[in-house]
Every structure is written in C-alpha cells, then in structure tokens.
C-alpha cells in the first residue's frame, strides 16, 4: 500500500502543468476561474489545442488516437486542467458516445465519428431521457420503425444538455414493442441537421438556457447509423452509464472549486473581517475539505482496483454530487446578501456594467440553483442507492 504518486506520475503532472501554463488561452482561463460561463467557441478552441497536443481524448486508448493514459494519469490530467482553469471538455462525445462506438461500433462508424469527436469539430448531444422516461429509462417511447435501409424516428427526448449546439445526437429508441421493455431498444446515431428534428429550449431555474427538448417528427435515419444489433441497445446504454458514473465524482473540478472557495473566503467580508474568520462558516468549509479528500481517495481506490470499477462506482456519484452541491451552496452564502441580485449579462464575456458586491457574487445563487441537477441526472442519487442495495449489498 502506497499513497504516494510514483516519480513517473509526478513527472507526468509537471508535464501537464507546464503544457497548461504555455497553452491555456488567458481569456478562457479568466472566465473559468471567475466561474463565468465559457462560450461554445471557447470549449471548441480548447479542444483543438488539446487535440494538437495529442491529448484530446484523455480517457481514450492509443489505437483510437488517445494518449493511452492509465486511470491515475487521467485523474492527474483532469485535476491539473481544473486547477489551471481550463474549461470542461464535452463529455457527451468524448466520454459517453465514443466509448460505445469504440466497443460496439463497426469499423466504418469508428472511422466516421471518432476523429470529429477528438478534434471537437462535431458537437454531440445525448438523447436518453424522455418526458415519461426518467429514472425508469427503459420505459422510453420514442420509436424507430424500419423502412428499407432507414429507420423512421418519432418521439421526444428531453434534458438534452447544450443540444442547441449539437451536430449529432445519440439516442435510445424503441425498435420492438412486443418484448420486455429493456429488450426492444436500439442505439442510434442521428445527424441533428436531419429534416424533422426540432430543438426547443428549456429555461432552467437559474434563468439560463442550457437544456433542451428535442422533437423527432418522421426523421429518416440510415440503418448504418445503428450501433451494434437491433434491440440490443440497452446493453450499450448500461455500458455508457457505467462510464458516466465514475466521471461524475468530479474530483478534479471540486478540488479546483475548493481552492477557489478558500480564496473567496478570504476575499468576502463579514463585519469588516474576512468570512473565513467566522468559525461557523469555516467549520463547514473544513468539513467539505475533509469529505473531498475522502472522495478523492475512494475514487483512487475504485480506479486502481484490478478488476475495474464495479457497481460501487455509485458511491462516487452520490458523494461527488453531494459534495459539489454543498460547495456551491457555501460559495453562494459566502457573498451573503450580494448573492440575491440577478445580473445575467454579467455572465457574458464583454460585460462592463455595474456589479453588486464582488464578482464572486455574480454566479453565486445561479450556480447553486443550477447544481441541484447534480443529484438528479446521470441516474438520480436514489437510483444510485438502489444500485448499491441490489448489486453491492445483494438486497
């Protein structure tokens, strides 16, 4: 047992750090560190820079153009990126559909789709949830009916994050109504420029447009865009959700946020003194700091497990999201009454207007509202507890 990183891992960390110092554009870094929203252009520009370095797909194996890093190296990379103020890469392509294509797609699908994901040229969206299929995902009703060498897709997907930018969407669709719900599902890749697709914004409680409904009205999808076998999509979907869950611990992001929180706690004033001198506030920060350390070690334990992450990855999703939510709650409360003011324009890159309090207050309440999603998406935390009960505890 050894909790130290190896000299090679430490050297790797230095290499990543130096790269970020040299190559992370200042305008992007500034926005991320202020917790203001990076634009689509910023996310894509950063992806191109990473791609040029050969680091576009940090979780990808070498044979598909990834760097072939170990799990620990991936974690180091993510952590350094987050600490440096790099924007999050787009998971939907890189970490969700890509592993499915790699594992279950045919050669033609790999050649066609993986390069665009890696370069960031193609923006992917996720078409899983439906208005009537949330936690009970297998009850989905969007249909794909075979018509020669095409499927005709009809239905509605929802909670499609950043779908307004989407070029392609991966969807679970029902191809067979005669069998048990899990057995009649197929996994389709759909070009979002296809006629009959309509993307409509869902405005979330923070007033932001991040999420969408996607409507399908007789959308023609070539059969060659189906991953794997017809009616076997649930297998691929579960594989994808397993990948998502480990990533949802978000340790790198939360460590960066914790570092930022410690700065904010020094900057924000409480009756003429920094709020960090208020023991009630400070205790909550210290509690989170300890919990974050436990999360990090638990992630490392799960990732370095020789048999790979099993269902206990659900712990990481639960704890990671709970810690994240409490951190954003504390960030809001750090700015006190300054956080009540809603100035959405101040989230934009060119804003020069007035602020109430410091810039720390700008994303405070909005982020807190936004982050309530963490314990709901990716399999709600209650569903994760079901998974632990059934698959780990055997109940």
């Amino acid at each position, binding site marked *: *047992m*050894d*909790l*130290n*990183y*190896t000299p090679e*891992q430490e050297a790797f960390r230095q290499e990543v750090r130096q790269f970020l110092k040299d190559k992370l554009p200042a305008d992007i870094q500034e926005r991320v560190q202020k917790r203001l929203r990076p634009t689509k252009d910023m996310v894509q520009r950063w992806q191109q820079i990473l791609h040029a370095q050969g680091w576009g797909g940090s979780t990808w194996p070498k044979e598909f153009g990834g760097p072939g890093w170990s799990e*620990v190296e991936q974690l180091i990379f993510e952590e350094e990126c987050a600490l440096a103020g790099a924007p999050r890469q787009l998971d939907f392509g890189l970490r969700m559909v890509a592993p499915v294509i790699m594992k279950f797609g045919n050669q033609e699908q790999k050649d066609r789709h993986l390069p665009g994901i890696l370069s960031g040229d193609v923006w992917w969206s996720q078409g899983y949830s439906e208005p009537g299929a949330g936690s009970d995902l297998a009850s989905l009703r969007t249909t794909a009916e075979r018509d020669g060498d095409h499927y005709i897709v009809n239905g509605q997907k929802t909670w499609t994050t950043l779908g307004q930018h989407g070029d392609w969407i991966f969807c679970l669709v029902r191809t067979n109504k005669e069998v048990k719900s899990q057995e009649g599902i197929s996994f389709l890749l759909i070009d979002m420029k296809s006629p009959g697709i309509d993307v409509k914004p869902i405005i979330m409680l923070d007033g932001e447009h991040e999420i969408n409904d996607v409507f399908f009205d007789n959308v023609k999808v070539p059969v060659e865009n189906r991953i794997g076998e017809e009616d076997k999509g649930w297998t691929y979907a579960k594989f994808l959700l397993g990948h998502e869950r480990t990533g949802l611990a978000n340790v790198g992001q939360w460590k960066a946020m914790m570092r930022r929180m*410690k700065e904010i*706690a*020094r900057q924000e004033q409480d009756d003429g003194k920094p709020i*960090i*001198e208020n*023991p009630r506030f*400070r*205790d909550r*920060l*210290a*509690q989170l*700091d*300890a*919990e974050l*350390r*436990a*999360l990090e*070690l*638990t992630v*490392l*334990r799960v990732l*370095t*497990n020789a048999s790979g992450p099993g269902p*206990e990855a659900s*712990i990481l999703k*639960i*704890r990671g999201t709970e810690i994240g939510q409490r951190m954003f709650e504390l960030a809001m409360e750090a700015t006190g009454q300054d956080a009540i003011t809603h100035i959405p324009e101040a989230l934009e890159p060119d804003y020069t207007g007035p602020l109430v309090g410091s810039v720390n207050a700008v994303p405070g309440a909005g982020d807190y509202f936004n982050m309530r999603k963490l314990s709901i998406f990716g399999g709600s935390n*209650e569903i*994760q*507890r*079901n998974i*632990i*009960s059934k698959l*780990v*505890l*055997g*109940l």
Partner: protein
Amino acid sequence: MNFELTEEQQMLQDSLRRFLANEYTFDKRRDVLASGKGTSETTWNALAEMGLLAFTFPEDYDGLGGNGIDTMIVMESFGRALVTEPYLATVVLAGGLVRDAGSDAQKQAILPAIASGEKLMALAAYENGARYNLANVKTRAEASGSDYVLNGAKTAVIHGGQANQLIVSARTSGDTRDQNGITLFLVDADASGVTINDFATHDGFRTAEVSLKEVKVTADAIVGEVDKGFPALEKAIDQGTAAICAEAVGTMDAMVEATLEYTQTRKQFGVPIAKFQVLQHKMADMFIHAQQGRSMAILAADQADSDDRDARREAISQAKLLIGQGAREVGQIGVQLHGGMGVTDEMFAAHLFKRLTLINLLFGDADYHLGQVSDNLLDKTA
C-alpha cells in the same frame, strides 16, 4: 499509488481473522467480559505467539519492522470481532512511544518484554478538565537531586488498571497549557504513591483513573528529553488515533454485515424487511460511510508514522472527523434497523454500536477534530 496489501500483510490479515473467528466468538468474548478482568490471558498469549505484539517494533528489539499499515490491519480485524485486549494501550500507544522516543536501554528493556506478551503498558496522557488538549498538564514532576517526584492525577488511561508500567506526562516547567515543559516518565504501576482505579467502559474495555502522590522516579525513567516530551506524545496519540480509525472501519463493516443479515432474516408483513426500499437506502448509506471511513483510515495509517507534523496532523484529524461522524451514523442506523432487538444486550449489533459510539469520544471527538482542521484553514490563509 496502490492500495494493495503485500503478500505478508495479506497473510497477517488472513491468519488473524481466522484465529478470531474461531477463538474470539461473540460468546467467548462475553465470558471474557463477565470475568471482571476484561482481558484474556489466553488470547493475549496467542497474539504474542502469532508475533502480533512484535509486528511494529524494530528488528533489533525482537520486532518485525512493520509500519502503520500493519497496525491498521490488526486493528481493523480487532474491530470486526470487538477484541478488548490491551493492544492499543500496550503496543500502539506506550510501545510506539518507547520505540519512537525511548533510549536504547529503554527499548531493550521494554520492547522485547511487550513482544513476548509478559509486559502490559498504558499511556497516562489526559487530565481532568483538559478534555482533548494533551498540553494541558497540571501533574508536576519536580527535580530532587538526580531524581524526580511526581504529583497529580491522570484520566482516561485506557487499560491502565491492567498495565505493569505507565508512561505519564508531567510538567517539568512552563505554564499549565504550554507545549514546552512537558516530560514523559516511565512509572511502575506498583510504585509507592501510585493509585490506579480500574473501571469498566460501556463497551467492555477497561479504563483507569491514576493518582500520583510523591511518586519518586529516577532520571533514567524519562522517555526522550526533559521538557521536550510533547511532540512524541502528540505523535503517539496520532498513531493511536489512526489505530482506532482502522478499528472503527472493522466495526462499521461488521455492523453493515450484521444489519444485512438481520434484515434479510427478519420478516414482517410477510416479507424479509430488507425488501423495503426505505431500509435499503439506509443500508446503502451505512455502506457509503464505511467505505469513506476505509479511505480515511488508509490515509491515517499512511500518515501515522510521518514526521511532517502538519501533514500528519491534518490527515489524522480529517480521518477522525469523518470516521467519528460515520461511526455515529452507522451505529445508530444499525441499531435502528435491528428494531427492538437492536437495543438488547443479546445482539452483536448492540455491542458494535457501543464500541462505535465510544471510538468517536476517544482521542478527540468529531467536533474537536473539525476544530483542528478548521483552524488550520485559518492559519494557512491568514
């Protein structure tokens, strides 16, 4: 970065667990507790024979050169079986202190005697009214020629009543709460002026209140240097804290297992109560706490031997904070899910609960350790 046990450590764990499963059953443990002595010579001698008492001592003193991870393995196994033997007091606290701060002569005299099972020791570090502050020492040691004379009282001396010899922290200079001016003394339990009041604890361990009246010791009874005993004392308590963190992990695991078994057996409304989702989620939460605790116990064990004081203390406090809180949650939920049976003496779960509760109180409760890490935050950012 790896979390694997070495082959030797795996063997240690396997053989210890096998031994405890056979020789330290719930019923046999009940007999030990009922004996009024609270410890079992048979068990202790068997542990000595297995080499367990020598594991963390240097090879030059009949030891096996083990480290904090080895202590973790032993304590976790003890925690699963609720072993009440004086391992923490003798081997981890007092033995560790002698190993880390003692003179060569002291190590020669003490460590092999502990390893063979013939010598029991205890650490008398805390005082009434000081709560968890180890520097709050009113017990005085006055120089008298080349000797010292000790006067004062010590509290929460775990297994003090069973020990042949104590290590006592006493003030040789400075004010009551100064870290400087504390000296550590070896004091024989039967020395003139030493009164040891032995008590049972709620969880079947033993604790003692020690009073010292004009107790005379020679200068060679000093462990470490005069006035400079505090860092060694603090480190010993940190190692003890790491040890009970590991113990708590074993006890939490045992509580999760006992609760899973009980809820799958107990039927109400015609089904095993484990079928109810409201109970399933509680058990999932117990499991999460136990896993989080395990991560932190590993961290504590890894840092327990470190001489980087700040890093060690932060890790220990973060670990004890989360494990203290987790032990409380796991203990309370475990009892709750056992229903009425959970609050009877008959059930293993009730005994696990008592140990988990008391572990939180030992060496700093969750509030104390939250205060430690919280104030560190202030120092670093000030």
